């Protein structure tokens, strides 16, 4: 399955890129998407995850074509 991965803010800077396109096995989780995209880098503490623009847990599963985003705690307002 092909997943579009996006990074924001400090995490985007740390990754050195805005997005990735990764292939994962069916039934893969958000955490598996991270592992595939980031290689050995563990998911930083406090990182928030979203699937198709809705907050999701790392244990949530993804589907082909999903957009998965990773970002630090939000600081708007």
């Amino acid at each position, binding site marked *: 399955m092909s997943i579009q991965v996006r990074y924001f*803010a400090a995490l985007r800077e740390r990754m050195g890129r805005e997005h990735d396109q990764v292939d994962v096995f069916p039934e893969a989780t958000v955490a598996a998407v991270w592992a595939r995209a980031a290689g050995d880098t563990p998911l930083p503490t406090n990182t928030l995850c979203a699937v198709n623009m809705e907050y999701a847990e790392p244990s949530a599963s993804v589907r082909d074509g999903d957009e998965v985003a990773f970002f630090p705690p939000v600081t*708007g*307002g």
Partner: protein
Amino acid sequence: MTIVIRPQAFDPWQELQDYQRASKLGASFGATAVFVGSMRDFNEGETVQAMRLEHYQGMTERHLEKICQQAQSRWDMLDCLIVHRVGELRPSDPIVLVAVWSAHRAAAFDASRFLMEELKSSAPFWKKEQLAAGGGRWVEKNSPG
């Protein structure tokens, strides 16, 4: 119910004047509660020269709509307006405007505060400060309300 993400500077009072004049609220509302958050020139012991506000286009709008709907289901809101700045900001620039119109004051007070707290704790925006002493730093987390 209107949500605007704006890359240009805005005057919250002008926004409210324009919005209310164009609205069809008439004389149905007795209460308007407004919150405006603006950029200070000082944060966590440092003079701040400028700020960049990043957001997740698409998710941010959708998330703000969701919290407006939550507020609408909890209080008798007649209307609400959220304007949030993104891009390059200077000290004293307005960052966010939240306004709620209702028949009676308790709903307006409660809903506007709810919207601000939800926005700050969960809407995908991120601030990077440019310090007068040099260098940039990402704001790590929002203060509790």
